[in-house]
């Protein structure tokens, strides 16, 4: 049982944060759903073509016909932001869902099987966790070449081990509880033990962990995009749009500012929604 590797480093979750009233919590979750709907139907909602100039350049927000103004070559900022939100939000959801799926399967197998399978899977997981995730993601995307797909691949590779660790720990903790032993003694089959006595206990933790994580992924994706590792121009992307127009910061703040603020709004909604989910679901501890 000597461990050569350091014990894995898991983001410790702050427990028992703010207590939200139930209606407020449901309202925030409604907001999560709303953002997802906006992201899915962004093309329908966007008033103008986001790629083509449609008006005067550098119009300020609330200008006629352009709610959020226009950028340096006269493209509608609202349309660009909506399409950018689509890319950011759906990507973040995909990374979290992918991480949850892969990490969840690895974690469940490791936790429920134990023995050498557990050891091997967790050694690999620990390796990933011991590396600086964001940096490795940058290196992977840089090596694969920038583009949305490669960005998603790069971020997903460093993102799943976190879920594997948490869910494996949760399964282990649950499996050690007397109720699992009691169920086994009362003659419950292995499948039923897993699906009825273990899984329902893990699901809330998985959902809470994932929903608290969407905001983190939104920010990381925005940072990568800011560095030029996301979609290539002229496709709208929130981080990249800010980076390309930095020079206009003091003259036309809204051109770099609006896409940046959109990231803030996404991350804020994700965090509040995550808190709401945690408040509504029973998680042990």
């Amino acid at each position, binding site marked *: 049982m000597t461990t050569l590797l350091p014990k894995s480093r898991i983001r410790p979750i*702050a427990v028992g944060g703010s207590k939200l009233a139930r209606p407020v919590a449901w309202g925030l979750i409604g907001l999560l759903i709303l953002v997802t709907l906006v992201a899915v139907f962004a093309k329908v909602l966007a008033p103008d073509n986001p790629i083509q100039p449609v008006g005067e350049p550098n119009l300020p927000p609330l200008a006629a016909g352009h709610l959020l103004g226009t950028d340096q070559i006269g493209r509608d900022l609202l349309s660009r932001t909506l399409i950018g939100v689509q890319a950011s939000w759906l990507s973040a959801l995909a990374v979290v869902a992918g991480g949850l799926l892969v990490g969840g399967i690895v974690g469940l197998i490791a936790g429920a099987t134990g023995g050498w399978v557990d050891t091997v899977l967790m050694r690999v997981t620990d390796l990933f966790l*011991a590396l*600086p995730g964001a940096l490795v993601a*940058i290196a992977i995307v840089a*090596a694969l070449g920038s583009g949305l797909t490669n960005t998603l691949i790069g971020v997903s590779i460093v993102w799943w081990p976190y879920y594997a660790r948490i869910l494996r720990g949760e399964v282990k903790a649950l499996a050690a509880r007397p109720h699992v032993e009691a169920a086994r003694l009362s003659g419950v089959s292995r499948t039923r033990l897993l699906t009825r006595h273990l899984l329902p206990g893990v699901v809330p933790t998985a959902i809470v962990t994932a929903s608290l994580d969407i905001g983190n992924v939104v920010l990381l994706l925005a940072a990568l995009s800011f*560095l030029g590792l996301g979609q290539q121009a002229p496709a709208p992307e929130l981080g990249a749009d800010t*980076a390309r127009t930095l020079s206009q910061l003091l003259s036309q703040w809204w051109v770099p500012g609006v896409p940046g603020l959109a990231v803030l709004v996404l*991350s804020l909604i994700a965090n509040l929604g995550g808190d709401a989910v945690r408040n509504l679901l029973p998680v042990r501890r």
Partner: protein
Amino acid sequence: MLRFLIRRLAGAVVILLILSFLVFVLEHIAPGDPARAYVGANASNATVAAQRQLLGLNDPFLAQFWRFLLGLVTGDLGRSLRTRQAVTADIATYLPATVQLVVAAFLIAVVLAALFAVSGALRWPGAFIGRGVLLLLATAPPFLLALLGLIVFFGRLGWLPARGTGDFEDPGPTGMQVVDTLLHGQGDAFLDALHHLVLPALVLSIAPAVAIGRVFRSSLQGVLHVDYVRTARSKGLTEGRVLARHVVRNALGPALSMAGLQLGFMFAGVVVVEQVFSWPGIGNYLAASIPVDDFPAIAGVTLVLGAIYVVSNAVVDLLQAAADPRVTVQ
């Protein structure tokens, strides 16, 4: 304790090996031909092929990896395609500014985190406003914070400079303006360096401050109600003593873990912040390398920052073991 130390350090070495292997594999996949980088873009295909042979790029995979490792140990990280310099030399030039920035940001983050946690756990009246502002700022992407800081403190108020590390020549030897000017007793230059450092460091510190602060607060809240704190109070100790001796030390573990983890996120954040503030650091170097697919430079930065991260996390673990006598037993 010694065994623990040795085991932990051995673990760090293994991780560094894996990181090197990962970077080596990525370098293989990456676009760009290192041989062409040596001989120049205009060289003939024959020259490039000869250079390939010379660089050993036709050798078996594992042999190349071995040479790559030897290179790492002797400080050879290859040559940048963009600057045409040795990556090691480039990094040596730019690293000090980054270290200065990250250390300053980390110190600010720790102070803010402690305030965040203690004010929350002890329910300081009115402090929730400060916590709310911090929480809001922490949900913003770092580049937006940087822009906001620039608009307010440079654009509107004109209090703080917008770019660079300082207007004075760095007198050496460390390459960190703040340290060097202090060593040479140059008061004006020191103040100028601090002046330049404030805003980037503050921007970089917000997210880790809140992340560490939230974890620290919840562990403080947990420990405040455990039995041995009640025992300490029943001894008639002052509340300050109870906190200092019995609460904080036992609540520190999760916060330390989080601090180590945040260091890793800061290395990603620093790339963005340095770019916005034109900070002559390794992050800016990385940001400049990305658009031109300068993979040797990207690999070098990843390795160096990764190594710093792995080592600092090993230190965090050792600190934790020192803080909690039970850790070594496991």
